[in-house]
């Protein structure tokens, strides 16, 4: 099923993306940009490099972590404003790297903001495509699209980054979703979460699933609007109910681990064609 999907998305890629006619020794160059979920992919790539199994070269830029660009995003008159030094820096990096592909992990913690701890006024919403999904008892029902409007604001930096990237490179841009949510947190000991949980309690797991699906919809719309490819969430990474499998738990309640990153790299391999190149090499 995944292969079918990837074959489908590859249809739209220009031929140069498959490196036809280039030296088999040349590994594709991938420019990775994004937020904290990029870490799992980055570290998985490092593993590959360490064992000389990498199929493409990858450099990574995480703008929110760079002191020079803080605050990366701030609200001015209710609208997001991004650090003015960032775009020239990005232009310089792209010019230096001349990437063949851009990999974006631009979906951050948007799905966790309201679904981690219990809200003082319990709320719920109904996913239009999954109306039978469990409801939270006695919770205030919020119109789905009202919630979507609220969360969409948190995704405005995705627009900013994609616009910036598209103005600087013609390389295909491939986005990855955030890893699926965790059903329970008991496996994870995180002092910051513990403080929150002590104060408010843990949100209903179904709310984490619904927010993840809501964010996926917004992210998908962004991808379509900007004409870029969005990878599906790796099917091996989640159970039938949509929650992340324990073998992909990261060090905290937000992030996935290197094993998850490896699943994403495999998806990239299929799109980039790096696996085949590696075999040839």
């Amino acid at each position, binding site marked *: 099923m995944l292969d079918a999907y990837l074959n489908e998305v590859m249809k739209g890629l220009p031929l140069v993306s498959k490196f036809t006619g280039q030296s088999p020794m040349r590994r594709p160059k991938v420019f990775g940009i994004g937020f904290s979920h990029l870490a799992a992919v980055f570290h998985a790539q490092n593993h590959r490099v360490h064992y000389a199994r990498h199929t493409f070269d990858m450099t990574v830029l995480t703008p929110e972590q760079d002191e020079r660009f803080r605050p990366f995003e701030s609200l001015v008159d209710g609208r997001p404003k991004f650090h003015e030094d960032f775009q020239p820096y990005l232009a310089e990096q792209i010019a230096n790297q001349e990437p063949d592909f851009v990999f974006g992990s631009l979906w951050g*913690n948007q799905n966790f903001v309201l679904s981690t701890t219990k*809200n003082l006024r319990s709320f719920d919403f109904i996913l239009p495509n999954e109306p039978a999904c469990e409801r939270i008892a006695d919770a205030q029902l919020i119109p789905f699209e009202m919630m979507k409007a609220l969360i969409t604001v948190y995704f405005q930096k995705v627009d900013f980054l994609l616009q910036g990237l598209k103005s600087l490179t013609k390389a295909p841009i491939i986005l990855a979703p955030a890893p699926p949510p965790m059903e329970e947190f008991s496996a994870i000991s995180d002092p910051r979460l513990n403080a929150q949980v002590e104060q408010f309690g843990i949100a209903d797991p179904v709310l984490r699933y619904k927010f993840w699906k809501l964010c996926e919809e917004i992210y998908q719309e962004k991808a379509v609007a900007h004409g870029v490819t969005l990878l599906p969430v790796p099917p091996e990474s989640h159970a039938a109910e949509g929650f992340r499998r324990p073998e992909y738990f990261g060090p905290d309640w937000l992030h996935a681990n290197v094993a998850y990153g490896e699943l994403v790299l495999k998806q990239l391999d299929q799109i980039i064609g790096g696996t085949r190149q590696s075999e040839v090499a």
Partner: protein
Amino acid sequence: MAKHPYKSLPEHCFWRDSVAKPLPAGVDPVVRAKFTITPTDKVVTAGSCFAQHIARRLQREGFNYFVSEAAHPLFSPALAAEYGYGVFSARYGNIYTSRQLVQTLQRAYGLFTPREQFWLNPDGRIIDPFRPQIQPNGFPSMAEFEADRFQHFAAIRRLVEECDVFVFTLGLTEGWFSREDGAAYPLCPGVAGGTFDSNKYKFLNLDVGEVISDLRWAFHFLWSKNPKARAVLTVSPVPLAATAIDQSVIVSTTYSKSVLRVAADEIARQYNNVAYFPSYEIIAGSFNRGAYFAQDLRSVTEAGVSHVMQLFMKYYGAKPEQAAAPNGAPQNTDVALQRLVQQQSEEIQAAAQVICDEEILAQRG
């Protein structure tokens, strides 16, 4: 000099002294109130679009405006308003006719279930025929539509049973109804959803007897659930945007407002705990020479609303000795909760942000 009854009448009974002579802003047609509204009294509103002005000002003027279907504190007032929250005490949208008021109560209590429950738009969106503009483009799924309506009806029941003062603004007599079961629609089917079909829908222009009968039913029902409730009736001064009758819209407007005004008077005279408040007269009265209507000659200006609410406060607002609630001003629990929820959201965001910032460095295979 001969004696006659007019000799002893107060100034407000005379046009020259009470209407022609004062400055427009000083004209006061209220004269007296049947009751006052204390700071702890829960006030709810419903009615036509003019009632939105009343609702907004009641909140601003410090009345204990009771909202039984509020937006979650996560949302800004602007976004909430887009989804029909905060416009009235519950999310029912405009209730233009007395028949709509009756059926809204009946539906909330399961006494009337219209055969036509929803309209399905060609794009698959679900429209609530009885509040077709309550959220942009209707509902994305039947499940949300049904769950939202369930929640809405519960909110109506709560405000019926808990309110102290019910302010209802009568707007129209013209309306569209189901031929099948008489269900009253706020807008003509086809305007904001649904498809107009003359075999399914009919036009009615309610007469004064029908409006009085509707209002009697509504108030008796209200008191059956909440005997302590009092009511203030007003008539919207906003003219009809269009009439479905083949005559001048001015003529239709005059008929409609006359019927509503007579019905309101009849009800207010019949029941001690129902008052009539003359917002219609304040806005539409010739003393202001049309100054309280905007350029479209329909919309009411802020100055007009201010005149109305200033008099409402003067007569219905708390007297100085009543102004202080036992523990000071009534606690607006919604505002307090909103602050807490926002604070909670900021805290969780901050925690998540810290983790994200550190993540690249912290994560190990």
